[in-house]
């Protein structure tokens, strides 16, 4: 699980072009949206594509993302439980 959390932080920074943020600055339980990393709706769509492409998880209802993308820890737990690749 720790390796997956680290992998997710790396992917979030790289794929969402968070140029000014380092892995150390993203806490496992930090909120990704709103006051946390300040991600926006396009970032949420990118994360949905990432789940599909890298972990074989298709979110059919975008509203699901709101809960899954709350933090890196919640994302990692969801991926561990649902991944197909």
């Amino acid at each position, binding site marked *: 699980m720790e390796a997956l959390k680290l992998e997710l932080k790396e992917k979030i920074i790289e794929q969402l072009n968070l140029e000014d943020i380092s892995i150390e600055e993203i806490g496992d339980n930090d909120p990704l949206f709103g006051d946390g990393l300040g991600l926006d709706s*396009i970032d949420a769509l990118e994360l949905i594509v990432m789940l599909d492409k890298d972990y074989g998880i298709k979110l059919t209802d975008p509203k699901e993302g709101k809960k899954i993308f709350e933090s890196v820890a919640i994302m990692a737990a969801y991926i561990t439980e649902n991944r197909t690749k």
Partner: protein
Amino acid sequence: MKLETYISTYCHIRNNKILINGKPFIKDAFDTDFSIFSKKVYKDLNLSYPKFFKMDNLSKLAFLAAECVLNREKTNEDDNIAIVLTNRASSLDTDRKHQSSIQDKESYYPSPAIFVYTLPNIAIGEISIKHQLKSENAFFILDAFNAEFLHNYACSLLENNKAESVLCGWVDYDNEKYDCFMYKVSQIGDIKHTINKLQNLYKIKD
């Protein structure tokens, strides 16, 4: 009513160099690609705007030129600055990136962050968001820089009270080749806004 119009500030971004009013803004040119060059300019302009790093290259080019022109004059959101930009390649550079992500049906993962930049006028949107402009704007695709077209369009906006000033320019980016000339026109300034003057300013070399 025919107005006397003037150019107050102009900026060129070419060959990894920036000129503001014909003078080098960054003295040391360096041989690198646009992504590294644009990051360096971002830092030199002391910007703190993380959304910049999410933009495509056309928007980055337009955004940096607008920063050079507008920040020099300390404009604010009440100034009613219209934006009229032109280029040759439209958003083709980003369109190709999007196309490559949907080429393979077995690996069909279009990026929403790339897709949103598959229109050239998004570059105008980025400038408008940063400077809180809710003004007239248009992006035209032309074969080459057209001083007469830009001159007449800016004059029309000013003469019909659609704007107090107009940020105009040529912002072209395709496949690591880019050319940007941006300037602000209003009834205040030192350089007379004529078609000939625009043609001459566009041709300025570092």
